[in-house]
């Protein structure tokens, strides 16, 4: 298998161009002049607890429009929880002890106050592991992403199918449209979920470990699609485990540990031994990539 051949066969309009048109109407959408400081996701003081345990403790997190933002942190640090709270699929965030009220804004609008269906037209969430035993074709799975865009009584329109096929092509899964989801490999299924989120035509895309199960070429491809979406004006926030992948592909990273933000900002400032050694309990050295100039991280155990 050649990891470097890329086909750009599909001709459909880029998924995501509708985001601006469809996203937040009523004066909260982006103007044509585009990006000022308040563009994109801006979450502040987000806390969330379960059974009396504080899983998120006053998290501040931004994901600017036009950028790929990485959410990093060890297992159990709260990445998935944060993404779910931001997506509004968990109970609303609570106020941090001693802090101000939590807020989650997108392009200045209160995201969690939006009606659900409207919110689902603004943001899409790709989950860590979602599967089904039902006999569902790949195309049908991607068409689920169109549900928030049409009346609940309507069937798929020709436009829906067009968008779904474009999303599949963009995720590199066009040849799989008629396969059953349950028969796919883990990496193929991961791409189907990405396609489903793309079919939602979101202005904000939240992804929980989208490169899970993917081979190295597919990981880079996925990150390239995310970059491309960002260039189309989507705000992308992805939880990642591979620090080097984040270093090579993200504009901006947020590091969580124990439900708190330890560091946030440019990869050069954040992916440094002073931060990572403490968070992961390893010894980290930073080199510079000879071609991209981005940080390359190596790890050895702490002694």
């Amino acid at each position, binding site marked *: *298998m050649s990891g*470097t051949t*890329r*086909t*750009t*066969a599909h001709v459909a309009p*880029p998924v995501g161009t509708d985001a601006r048109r469809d996203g937040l109407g009523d004066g909260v959408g982006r103007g044509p002049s585009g990006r000022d400081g308040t563009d994109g996701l801006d979450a502040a003081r987000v806390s969330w607890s379960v059974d009396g345990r504080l899983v998120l403790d006053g998290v501040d997190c931004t994901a600017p429009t036009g950028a790929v933002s990485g959410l990093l942190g060890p297992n159990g640090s709260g990445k998935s929880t944060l993404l*779910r709270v931001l*997506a*509004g*699929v968990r109970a609303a965030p609570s106020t941090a002890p001693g802090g101000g009220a939590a807020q989650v804004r997108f392009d200045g609008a209160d995201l969690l106050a939006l009606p*659900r*269906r409207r*919110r*689902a037209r603004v943001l*899409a*969430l790709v*989950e860590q592991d*979602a*599967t*089904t*035993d*039902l*006999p*569902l*074709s*790949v195309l*049908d*799975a991607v*068409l*689920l992403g169109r*549900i*928030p865009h*049409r009346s*609940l*009584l*309507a069937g798929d329109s020709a436009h829906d199918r067009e968008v779904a096929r474009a999303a599949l092509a*963009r995720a*590199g*899964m*066009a*040849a*799989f449209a*008629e*396969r*059953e989801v*349950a*028969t796919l490999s883990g990496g*193929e299924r991961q*791409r189907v*979920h990405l396609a489903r989120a793309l079919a*939602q035509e979101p202005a904000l895309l939240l992804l929980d470990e989208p490169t899970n199960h993917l081979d190295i*070429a*597919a990981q880079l*491809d*996925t990150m*390239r*699609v995310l*970059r*491309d979406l960002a260039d189309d004006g989507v705000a992308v926030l992805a939880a990642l485990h591979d620090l080097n992948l984040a270093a090579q592909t993200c504009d901006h990273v947020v590091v969580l540990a124990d439900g708190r933000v330890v560091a946030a900002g440019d990869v050069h400032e954040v992916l440094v031994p002073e931060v990572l050694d403490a968070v992961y309990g390893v010894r980290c050295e930073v080199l510079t990539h000879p071609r991209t100039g981005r940080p390359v991280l190596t790890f050895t155990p702490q002694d």
Partner: protein
Amino acid sequence: MTTLRDRPAPAPPARPGGAGTRARRGAGWWVPAGVGALVVTVLVAVTIGPADLAVGDVWRSVATHLGLGGLLGLEPLGALQDGMVWQLRLPRVLTAAAVGAGLAVCGVVMQSLTRNPLADPYLLGLSSGASLGAVLVLVAGWTVLLPVAAFGGAVLALVAALGLAGALGALTPTRTVLAGLAVSQLAAAATSFVIFWSATGDSYREILSWLMGSVAGATWTSVAVAGGATIVLGTLLASTGSVLDAFTFGDTAASALGVDVARVRWTLLVGVALLTGALVSQSGSIGFVGLILPHAVRLLTGARHRLLLPLSALFGATFLVWADTLARTVFAPRELPVGIVTAAIGAPVFALLLWRGRKVA
């Protein structure tokens, strides 16, 4: 613009035509074909029985009762034959159709909502609750109260199951199923106790026939109750296709697609319970229809609900009419409870479906 590197084309699907291809090819014809099959089934099934009636006689009787006799210049049927069609067979056939349609729709909804392929309309202890209510009145000899007692039992079981699940925390699929199981077991134990303690002679057969499910005693009242409930609640449930689709990848995915998961789950569970309760009150708890039909129809339509729900209703109706026709003719003049027939057909079919689905599961 960038796309992901295209994956190599997949090997041909294991079975010719994956669910997706099947779902699209000729799909527009299935609902009309299903309606046609059901109409023919009803007209033919009414003519089958110990006293032979031709299809023409059936039409004559029906047309006369619909007030079309004069218009079409038909002579009315003899009183005996007419009574056979209009008072006995037609209500029975129509009740079977309504019950079959309703159970199949309820089965689809329950399976999708709980994401449990083994779910059926009785999952929340509804049939056990209804049985307890029915057996209590049968043993007491208050047979007229049977439908009311069965419906009441089903609703009480639902309240108990949802209450128990809710008391344990959020209404998740697993918790709902487990609570239903607990209620079911308790009601079944109570039913056995009542039968063991006080049933005598005749009531045994009556109880057994009810427990297995039967439409033998169907009247126009049964048609009104079962048909009315199926048309009203079944249509409401069948119109929720998009919402049920959204549950395919679980609650979080549904929520991310803009569905109010908790509210939808409560509403649909209550809708299923009311419909099932109404059906059980007329026919007892007929097994396997709500479990098997959804799986069989999914082989045709794939897992999307827009076609799955109406087709399941049509096929469920057709299936139960034929099952009931078998039940009253195979050992004529003795009758079997139709539940025995559906189980005898359903169990092997279920095994077959499992065998076919083994590659996927």
